[in-house]
């Protein structure tokens, strides 16, 4: 059975299929600017370093986008990251720091992050609180727990942990394997039935409910996955900083939201791209390094970063508009 030929050419536009294209453009421009400001910043080593630093934000942004797809938001991702960070670091120490201890601790960390996400889902979906305020509050709770687990920053992790994260396998830096894994994860996730349901819920919650979708379960699942990926982000942070810090992730929360938006995902839900969010995280990373390489004096760096993020957001909007026309 086939449809008349006149019906077939009308497909999704390129931009509808790949909403991250504007972000990709901005990323290219920023790479160019970085290269001009400091040619060395385009060296293999520098790129590896940049990836090492911003891998956690990439995971966090991808985590955030899942929740945003269903038209919710999670302002506790940073706090979950911090909590998992200290739980893993303390657990490794308590278990003696062997290879088994490291692996087990990482697994427990991912579990803790997932549970934190389920708790968020319960509070937002089950108790029907506004996600923006409810996750703000749960974020404070998670920070409180993190401070109870490890009151002050410190406590180094075994060498094996950060050596692996910063090291190479077959001459390719470990972090690039992680990036590839993240890419594979995204590739698989966008092909699940779940993501279609999730997007439908974000598009029109009532319509999804009337269509017989288990809206509550779908939304809680998004929060759980978000918590899980935030925990993976925490593992990246540990690899990068090699120690525990109960507030390390808290400033990253709104960066993750910014990365999601930079990546072409609408906060209103129902459409967007996880790959875009990962690119959005890299854009933020490149902005920060550009501001540094451009020789902005330290007291003006925050100002310049803020302006640059604004410019990137505006550029994204303009490109989107141009393409949609």
């Amino acid at each position, binding site marked *: 059975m086939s449809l008349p030929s*006149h019906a077939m050419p009308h497909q999704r536009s390129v931009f509808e299929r790949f909403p991250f294209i504007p972000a990709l453009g901005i990323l290219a421009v920023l790479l160019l600017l970085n290269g001009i400001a400091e040619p060395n910043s385009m060296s293999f080593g520098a790129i590896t370093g940049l990836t090492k630093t911003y891998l956690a934000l990439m995971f966090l942004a991808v985590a955030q986008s899942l929740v945003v797809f269903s038209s919710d938001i999670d302002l506790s991702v940073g706090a979950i990251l911090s909590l998992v960070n200290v739980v893993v670091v303390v657990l490794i120490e308590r278990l003696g720091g062997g290879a088994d201890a490291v692996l087990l601790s990482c697994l427990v960390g991912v579990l803790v992050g997932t549970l934190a996400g389920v708790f968020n889902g319960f509070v937002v979906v089950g108790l029907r609180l506004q996600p923006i305020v409810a996750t703000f509050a749960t974020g404070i709770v998670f920070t409180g727990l993190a401070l109870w687990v490890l009151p002050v920053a410190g406590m180094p992790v075994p060498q094996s942990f950060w050596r692996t994260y910063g090291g190479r396998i077959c001459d390719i830096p470990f972090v690039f394997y992680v990036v590839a894994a993240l890419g594979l994860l995204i590739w698989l996730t966008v092909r699940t*039935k779940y993501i279609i349901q999730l997007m439908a819920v974000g598009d029109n919650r009532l*319509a999804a409910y*009337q269509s*017989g979708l*288990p809206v509550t379960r779908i939304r809680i699942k998004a929060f759980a996955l978000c918590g899980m990926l935030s925990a993976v982000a925490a593992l990246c942070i540990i690899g990068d900083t090699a120690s525990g810090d109960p507030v390390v992730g808290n400033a990253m929360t709104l960066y993750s939201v910014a990365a999601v938006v930079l990546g072409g995902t609408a906060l209103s839900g129902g459409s967007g791209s996880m790959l875009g969010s990962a690119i959005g995280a890299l854009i933020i990373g490149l902005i920060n390094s550009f501001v540094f390489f451009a020789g902005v004096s330290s007291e003006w760096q925050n100002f310049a970063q803020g302006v640059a993020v604004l410019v990137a957001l505006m550029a994204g909007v303009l490109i989107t508009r141009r393409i949609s026309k």
Partner: protein
Amino acid sequence: MPRLRLEGVCKRYGATVALGRGDLSLMPGEVHVLMGSNGSGKSTLSKIIAGSVRPDEGVIECDGSIVTIPSPRAARDLGIAVFYQELSLAAHRSVVENICLPGLGHARGLFRNRAEMTAAAEPFIEPFESVLGEGFGLDVPVGRLRADQRQLVEIMKTLAARPDILIFDEPTSALDRAQVECFMAVLRKLKADGKSIIFISHRMDEIFEIGDRVTIIRDGETVRTSVLADTTMEEILRTMTGEEATGPAAPAVSAAVKTPQRPTVKLKVSNLVAPGVNNVSFEVAAGEILGFGGLHGQGQSAALRALFGAAQSRSGDIEVGTTRLTGNSPRASIRNGLAYVSGDRARDGVIEGRSILENTVPIYALKNHLFVASPRSLGAKAQQALEQLQTKYQTLFHPINSLSGGNQQKVVVSRWLMAPPEVMLLDDPTKGIDIASKAELFRVLRELAAAGMAILLYSSEDAELLENSDRVLVFNNGRTVRELVGDERTRYHLYHAAYEAA
């Protein structure tokens, strides 16, 4: 044995009875038409079957066994699928994804298979192949489709659930004739396959074309079920409205019989087109109350909002008095002498949390370009306007929320009376107001009309509309289909016009 049987099903919201007694028996292989006037409870009845409203009392039987339908999901598991009038589509998802959405969770496997989904959707698209129109495609996001195409997708989605019981709530309102033909063919096939169909439509010709039996709901109670072949449109309308075709007109309002020698036209609208409004033209004279009637959501409110400049877009000619209205914004409309009072006070009327005084003066302030004002001199003027409507309040400085709904609405109306407009647009103004306040409000509106104001009135209550309008324009699908004057202003004629094919 009936496939679905409802007995004594009842739903109340607080003191309001949405459905007093719903009885229905749905046989296999029949198209069962549900008819009733506005607010009679037909949508409540279908929502109960759809699982989105839980009944307070009553028995639902499916294939002979008693069931409860706590959610749309449960309804789906019982083999019930619903076409929602307001559509249940995800705008960013593709046609295929929308059609397959309800079944997605039931199919096994973690990943979607695009080829499989397309194959699953195609049999339901195929019957409409010849009428899909320009721009339709399997992979096109539903939000990019035209209204009629979206409605077709909703139909396909309903069919794709392969249900035994289908509820269609106004499935053809946006479709053209050829598309309706296709749909009717699909319904006939479902009927032949022994499926049961509940059909709600405002097109009488369709009802007689496809329907087998009709159940009529009046004032929240199912009053009669009859075989359509043995009945006539007139008989149905009589049962529906409880009135005779040639019965007495609505109680004549004193002002309704007045015939001014040379009526001065206060508002002249030609070819008004706006979202939900399709080429509407009319005139209103000074001293006249023109009612907008018909089934709910046929463009009455949309036309009033468009006139006030609150619609996204608008074309057509609007003359207030002798001046032509330019600029599509409430501000421009207000400056040209229009006023708008909405039944949705929270959205369009009341300024939450502010004082009664602040809620009374904004229009006066706008029209007089007030920058600095003393509460005392303004208060005196506000008080006058409020007293005209016999508004009950403690002081002008109490917050608006301290008043009852009826008194809040009076404050909103008196806002306009401080600087009287030429034309007043009333968009279901008495929604949620007690009876005494309603009567009071209409007494004042009568006085205002007598003093030369022109008034446009839409009311969701038919009795209120018929009693208070000098003329009634009946809306159907965004167009005006008939004008009721004099003795024709009865519920019978109103529904006769509303159900006539546009």
